[in-house]
């Protein structure tokens, strides 16, 4: 902060004028550098409404270092003129002078001097006039006196070209009295201290106003990942709707549970090497429930349970192949099979949100692994109307209007359910969607790699807001 003596001097100057004063004039009046006055203005501004200051800028001409040298010693051409005695001077000598080169050509063009090239002993320079007027120096003097406006633009630009003048932009302040104007300065406290509270001295003190425009200091905190925040919200939605969480902590699954049990034929393209990750170690699964396995084999290869079947040669070897599960529906199948083994069927509502894997071509919206959200309801007599009703409730909670585009839904086929042993009148409705897709829509992220995986930008994680799906 500028010292209070200076501040008060500035205030007294401001008091004297009615309409206000320019900080440059203040600097002139107080004979201090303008920057010092600018500092004082800022200090006064910080005191509250003592003064008002608006920034403005003006252009003016200033004499350069070389220009100042000319003010003292005369222009180069004048110096050259002075250096030449009556009897002249060899050109070579003249050129050795500090002003020699520039001065010679300018003095020549001013016709102050002449060059005798054929002179005995080498070219020699002579005066052509007795006295000269150093116009350059005079013009610089005018500028120095603050009378640059009296020079013509052409003249000023000529001097600028010779690097004797520069045009500078000066930022200054127009200072007027503020609503709390006073010529005395009270020292302001920055912060309330325990001592002030104890002594009560805070009552007499003035406090420096806070700058509410500035940002606060960021708290030293940890952060949750945005995709996981969205996962938490989806769990919450399912729990609110009475759905029980399925154990999906088994990334490795047999083709049997992932495909065959879902009545997915063994030649289905999803079972291709190009779509599914197969395992070389451990390559095969074993011990499927034997009766159930037979029924699955039969419904694929011969039909039954009211179905024509696919009528192909179903192979256990294909079903045994271990894979990275391609959907969490593999877990739903295990859960429904388990449910069918109960003594008496009880209705269930299941959900899961977990990773699934696809050996697909990767692009901006597809990774080899993503999170699948799945909901399943099994009960007697569920209808397509029920499926649509449940979906409507679910997606209303999500706040997503165009939900058809982000998910799949349907009724599980009897060829899947009846071999498990579920009662014929039981329907199972299910739907699924990816966790990443709605998250990208929600947060406006176009490239999935900015959201998932090690290449994520931690700043994005630090900055991500809380997740409220329905708002």
């Amino acid at each position, binding site marked *: 902060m500028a010292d209070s003596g200076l501040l008060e001097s500035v205030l007294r100057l401001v008091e004297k004028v009615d309409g206000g004063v320019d900080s440059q004039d203040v600097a002139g009046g107080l004979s201090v550098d303008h920057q010092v006055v600018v500092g004082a203005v800022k200090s006064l501004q910080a005191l509250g409404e003592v003064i008002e200051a608006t920034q403005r800028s003006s252009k003016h001409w200033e004499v350069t270092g070389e220009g100042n040298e000319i003010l003292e010693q005369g222009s180069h051409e004048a110096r050259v003129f002075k250096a030449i005695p009556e009897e002249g001077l060899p050109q070579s000598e003249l050129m050795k002078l500090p002003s020699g080169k520039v001065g010679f050509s300018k003095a020549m063009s001013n016709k102050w001097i002449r060059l005798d090239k054929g002179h005995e002993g080498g070219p020699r320079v002579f005066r052509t006039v007795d006295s000269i007027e150093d116009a350059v120096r005079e013009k610089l003097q005018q500028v120095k006196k603050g009378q640059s406006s009296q020079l013509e633009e052409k003249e000023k630009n000529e001097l600028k070209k010779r690097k004797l003048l520069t045009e500078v932009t000066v930022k200054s302040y127009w200072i007027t009295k503020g609503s709390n104007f006073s010529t005395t300065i009270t020292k302001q406290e920055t912060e309330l201290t325990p001592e002030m509270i104890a002594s009560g001295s805070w009552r007499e003190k003035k406090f420096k106003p806070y700058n509410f425009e500035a940002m606060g200091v960021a708290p030293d905190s940890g952060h*949750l990942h945005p995709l996981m925040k969205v996962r938490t919200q989806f769990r919450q939605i399912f729990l609110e709707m009475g759905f*029980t*969480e399925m154990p999906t902590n088994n*990334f490795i699954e047999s083709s049997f549970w992932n495909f065959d049990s879902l009545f997915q034929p063994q030649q289905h393209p999803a079972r291709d090497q190009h779509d599914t990750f197969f*395992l070389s170690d451990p390559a095969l699964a074993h011990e499927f429930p034997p009766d159930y396995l037979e029924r699955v084999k039969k419904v694929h290869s011969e039909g039954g349970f009211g179905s024509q079947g696919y009528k*192909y040669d179903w192979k256990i070897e294909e079903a045994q192949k271990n894979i990275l599960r391609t959907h969490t529906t593999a877990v739903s199948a295990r859960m429904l099979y388990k449910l069918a083994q109960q003594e008496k069927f009880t209705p269930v509502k299941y959900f899961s949100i977990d*990773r699934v894997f696809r050996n697909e071509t990767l692009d901006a919206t597809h990774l080899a692994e993503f999170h699948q959200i799945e909901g399943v309801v099994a009960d007697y*007599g569920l209808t397509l109307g029920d499926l649509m009703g449940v979906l409507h409730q679910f997606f209303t909670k999500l706040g997503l209007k165009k939900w058809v585009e982000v998910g799949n839904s349907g009724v599980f086929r009897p060829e899947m359910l009846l071999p498990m042993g579920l009662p014929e009148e039981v329907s199972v409705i299910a739907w699924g969607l990816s966790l990443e897709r709605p998250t990208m829509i929600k947060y406006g992220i176009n490239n999935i790699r900015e959201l998932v995986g*090690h290449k994520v930008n*931690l700043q994005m994680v630090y900055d991500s807001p809380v997740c409220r799906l329905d708002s």
Partner: protein
Amino acid sequence: MPTVGVKRDLLFQALGRTYTDEEFDELCFEFGLELDEITSEKDIISREQGDQKAEGASDVILYKIDVPANRYDLLCLEGLVRGLQVFKEKMEAPRYRRVSPVNGDPQRLIITEDTAGVRPHAVAAVLRNITFTPERYESFIELQEKLHQNVCRKRTLVAIGTHDLDTVSGPFTYTAKAPNDIRFRPLNQSQEYTATQLMSLYKTDSHLRHYLHIIEDEPLYPVIYDSNGIVLSMPPIINGDHSKISVNTKNVFIECTATDLTKAKIVLDMVVTMFSEYCAEPFTVEEAEVVYPDGRMFSYPELAYRTETISADFINRRVGVKESAESIAQLLTRMCLRSEVAGDDGQIQVEIPPTRSDVIHACDIMEDAAMAYGFNNITRTTPRTYTVANQLPLNKLTELLRMDLAAAGFTEALTFALCSQEDIADKLGKNISETRAVHISNPKTAEFQVARTTLLSGLLKTVAANRKMPLPLKLFEISDVVLKDETTGQYVGARNNRRLCAVYYNKTPGFEVIHGLLDRVMQLLEVRPGRKHGYYIQAAEDSTFFPGRCAEIFSHGESVGRLGVLHPDVISGFELTMPCSALEINIEHFL
């Protein structure tokens, strides 16, 4: 979902009226299709290869229509039009009939034993007195391609060959021969090649090279000859040039060879039902006989109609509507499933035509009824299923710990479950054989060689990708790793294990920070410090960590994880430059 491209004006002409794009989109939706794109050949070429190449290409408007994967009867203009006209009740679904030839015996295709090892099945039929136009011909070729890509599973299950019957003479022989013993002039080539030569010729063919693998390593290749030894085709690769069809062909001999007979019958039925429309006697197909090596003889195409009896009550209960049997029968008839009410107890007889191979269960009939009724016309209801929700205890614990780890100043990372062997072994100073990792047999890149056995490498890669962020970096993740385990109840030889991992990356190793985090985690899990019934740490040797700076964590006497300062080679291995300490524990122990 296959996409079928049809010329808009041809489509409208066949439908007998025009539609606005919106009207047609709406019609597609009602019929279970999706108008995916409105484009032109010019647009497509310009998008894929640039404007220059597109110059001069046709700008006739094309509708690209998404068709459900198993609706093979909608894969061409003829089928789409027929389906839509029946749906709009502008026509009745045609009846497809197999007929005997007017003169002489049926064409015969004799299968020899040699095909057994490579492609044992074949079916055949004749389209007699057909009239092609350039558009019909193009559609005929296009349908075969669509069938090849879909139901034929890229020709592995079924391959279709179509021939100008007037250029060849039966009976035909379907056999298999050594590649060097097969020699013919293939389609659109000017000279003869042996099968061996053909396989190398087509290695660079952008279309055919995708099918070579199907027979490439077989000792015998499938081949079909006519009675004069002319090669009709070498399935599933290429037809002979001799019998190729053209827009002027009048009589078409169709053969389908297959590894899956059911699919071959479906494919043959599709080709003939779609194009018999253009025969002199529409919707009739001339039969052909196929003789197996054991003497069994079959007549094709099957063109089988099947009748299912369902009750109106079943449809109403499954869809959630209250329609009369008559109304349901009408809805189904509009879906090409000709239906009649039988008797007065609400039973409906539904006839499934050969074009609807996708209808294999009453639930498919129910779905068609729902579609014809209009999904959007079904009242949305709430199931009365009463259930109490339960969280999976492991996930519940994970959720609670995540919140408190963030509250402890650590930021959550989300890393991939798949990675390279190097990530979990070499880079961590371990040998892959000691990791218990499961290995992927068909990774497209090294990033997907194994499932991770530790969360540490993912966190270190996250740090590496964020080296520009202000220090310290404090990261954690709670997620699953996968370990080989023969004792698991799921019988796949592997199981997941839920881990908590955290790293501290700064100018100083910060062991005390990571150690403090362990203490906090144990406090959260209500485990007190102590030898017997609590937790303690004990110096351990581990090649991932700096010697003397690693400890094993024990809880209730069981090892649950490790913490320590990472080995400088590990730090450099992940392209990091600062010291780093880390913690990884198995949280399933605390359930």
